[in-house]
């Protein structure tokens, strides 16, 4: 265990660890299992710094619902993992505490923003880790690190204690070495929480039971928009092989269309920054975290926030402030919400037509080199296949489907709202190929 932590420290994927942690109950489905928690999920005793200077050293006096549920299931909260600041990024390079490295290839990024949690599972530090999703922040690093990553249906898991980035998109997600581990972990954290008004009162089934569902009962949609001409040919080839194998095993494969998918990135980059600009207003130096005093109140706000937030966070706060401003709200935010409804409707219509799940590549490329992507827009395109599920609120999972030049790639299964059981059935099938 300690050797693992030391290796993880070399990869800069662990920000804080609790070496003396013990299970707080005598038994449970995760009894004595060490788990890693992303740095934006509130835990007692260890810092919750969101990869940001503005919260450096901040220790939460209360714990997130997911963490309490994990403790009640016997898990040991072993460490906090590195992330892009406030979950804004796709490489974990935008952490105030330095970039995390991909354990598969240390010259490459682990993906992000939950890169630390994905890397911790890939490096064998912990079998299960938790991250957060806003536009793909669990599935994309899972794909880059060769592990399983789940983005549950919006409302499936409590957000209480998850430091908000974009509240209408955020959802706590799960990493596992296997689909089975992820299914087990999700069941523990899922379910209604009276502390989160957006958490849904929908029963939580035993997701592991999905393992026995025959592949032949599944109708899998292949959304044509997710296989553009520009797609990395090696990834396309691998995806085609996967679909062929599933077909051979009796699954029905059907081409479908989600016509508004091309609008997802612009819509996402209006809604997410808009909500973020408001969610991050509380980091003002008044009550906790960094405070840099100046001449008067405004000077304190300006000094604290400009020193406390990194470039990417600042960029998104400015973008979000702009799109919510008087005179621009209708053109940007309202319009984006209208398009979001169309994207949601695309999924609803496809699932209503008899398709059980959709299969797509998780990312357009495998893990890239550290520093290779410097243009923000190019970085945003990492979310192109994942952010639709956040906008529409659907459940989705990334499962390793092989390697390209020795680098892991992921296949994504997208399911209807609260269709996790079907999603896991397809994921088990994918994993068994």
């Amino acid at each position, binding site marked *: 265990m300690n050797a693992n932590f030391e290796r993880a420290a070399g990869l800069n994927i662990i920000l804080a660890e609790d070496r003396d942690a013990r299970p707080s109950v005598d038994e449970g489905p995760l009894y004595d299992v060490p788990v890693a928690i992303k740095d934006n999920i509130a835990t007692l005793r260890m810092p919750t710094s969101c990869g940001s200077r503005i919260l450096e050293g901040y220790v939460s006096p209360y714990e997130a619902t997911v963490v309490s549920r994990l403790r009640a299931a016997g898990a040991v909260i072993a460490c906090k993992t590195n992330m892009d600041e406030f979950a804004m990024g796709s490489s974990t390079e935008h952490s105030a505490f330095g970039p995390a490295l991909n354990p598969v290839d240390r010259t490459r990024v682990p993906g992000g923003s939950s890169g630390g949690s994905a890397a911790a599972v890939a490096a064998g530090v912990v079998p299960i880790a938790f991250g957060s999703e806003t536009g793909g922040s669990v599935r994309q690093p899972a794909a880059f690190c060769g592990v399983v990553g789940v983005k549950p249906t919006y409302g499936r898991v409590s957000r209480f204690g998850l430091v908000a980035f974009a509240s*209408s998109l955020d959802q706590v997600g799960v990493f596992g070495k296997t689909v089975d581990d992820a299914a087990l972990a999700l069941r523990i954290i899922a379910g209604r929480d009276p502390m989160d008004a957006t958490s849904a009162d929908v029963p939580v089934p035993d997701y592991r039971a999905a393992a026995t569902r025959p592949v032949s009962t599944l109708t899998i949609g292949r959304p044509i928009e997710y296989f553009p001409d520009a797609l990395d040919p090696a990834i396309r080839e691998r995806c085609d092989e996967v679909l062929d194998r599933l077909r051979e095993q009796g699954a029905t494969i059907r081409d479908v269309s989600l016509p508004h998918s091309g609008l997802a990135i612009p819509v996402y980059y209006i809604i997410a920054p808009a909500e973020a600009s408001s969610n991050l207003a509380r980091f003002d130096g008044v009550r906790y975290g960094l405070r840099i005093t100046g001449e008067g109140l405004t000077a304190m706000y300006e000094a604290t926030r400009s020193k406390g937030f990194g470039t990417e966070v600042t960029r998104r706060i400015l973008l979000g402030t702009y799109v*919510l401003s008087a005179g621009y709200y209708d053109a940007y935010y309202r319009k984006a919400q209208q398009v979001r409804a169309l994207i949601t409707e695309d999924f609803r219509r496809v699932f209503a037509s008899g398709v059980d799940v959709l299969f797509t590549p998780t990312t357009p490329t495998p893990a890239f080199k550290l520093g290779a992507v410097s243009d923000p827009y190019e970085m945003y395109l990492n979310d192109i296949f994942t952010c639709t599920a956040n906008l529409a609120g659907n459940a989705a999972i990334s499962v390793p489907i092989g390697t390209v030049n020795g680098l892991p790639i992921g296949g994504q299964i997208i399911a209807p709202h609260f269709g996790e059981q079907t999603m896991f059935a397809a994921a088990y099938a994918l994993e068994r190929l």
Partner: protein
Amino acid sequence: MSNYEMVVGLEVHVQLKTKTKAFCDSPTTFGAEPNVNTCPVCLALPGALPVLNAHAVELAVRAALALGCNVHRTSIFARKNYFYPDLPKGYQISQYDRPLATAGRLAGVGITRVHMEEDAGKSIHDRYTGATAIDLNRAGVPLIEIVSEPDMRSAQEARRYLQTLKQVLEYVDVSDVDMEKGSLRVDANVSARRMGETKLGTKTEVKNMNTFSGVEKALEAEFVRQVAVLESGGRVVQQTMLWDGAKGEVRPARSKEESHDYRYFPEPDLPPLVLSDSYIEEIRRALPELPDARRTRYREQYALSDQEIDELVADQPLAAYFEETATALGDAKSAANWVRGMSSSALAVRPAQLAELLAMVKKGVISHTAAKTIFDDMEKSGERAERVADRLGLRKVGDDDTLRQWIVEVKAENPTEWARFVAGETKLQKLLVGLVMKKSKGKADPQRVNELLLLH
């Protein structure tokens, strides 16, 4: 001045009387030690989320219905974004384009909307030198904002509206409506225009008024200021004015406090507030009788004067006390006469017992003067009227021997008056009866005293 008319609309913030805050379980007790009534949610700690207080919704709906509003089946919370140290989240959860209720009416004034929101904390500037202290006990306390149409045409009318509003909110028991404690706060939009003009003039917003009479004075002062500006050919600038009650003047707020772009957007942490018809109707059914309806009923059922009705209706506990007394006594007029002189903060004597006392007056067993003495005793001793009358020996004395003895004494002590009375100056009879009553400590039966005097 008389060539201009004042146009006023009021925005009233009312703290709802809940045990816990609007979006968390922290208590709302007034006057607690600073920052004691707080939790991760109202301190806006990272990761905390709001959950709507169902009791706050019930009180808000009750208030909106009492103000004759249309309560909407779906309303939406929105974030009002601005930076201020006593606003911990950096935004206030409020309602914007889909408020809880619209289109009400009160005292002839249209009510544009009633919406729910949360209070901010308090900045304390005078406690530490060179520093501002923040108390977040009030942060997250539930409020309703009641926005009126610009329907009022004078400061007096605005005051009347506020008094009626306060009365209605007291009747439906949704708030303490105490301006001094800040549970009712008033901002006014004021403009002036030439008589006969139908277009609205440029308005200013007047704030910092802490009493109803302050509102009246502030509106008057701002109107005078605006008219002076207009008369001198100037233009009224749209701005926020602060009322200085000590100096009796309005002055512009620092420009910083204005022209916010609040960047409203729907609060993603709270689903839309959806109320069923049956929920709304149940609250409507449970509404108490409102002041207007009560006025009408008192006129018809008790035949009281407008003055009597207004005094009783203005004070709900007193009105309830009056009704019980009137029922027990079977005489509304006597009950009203007595109860009007009482204070709702001192209702120790139960209505049924007061009715017994008043019945004794009616039957002539005790005098009105004695009744007051007996009532004072009843408040302290808790004993019933009959017993107190006996203990204090205040039953009327009607036997002629005793009464004659008192009359003789009065005659001896006031020979001049007596002589004039006997000589035919009948108006002195009242004085003499009074002196006999005084001598008897209120026990003499005044009617018999009159009869005996006339026999002389």
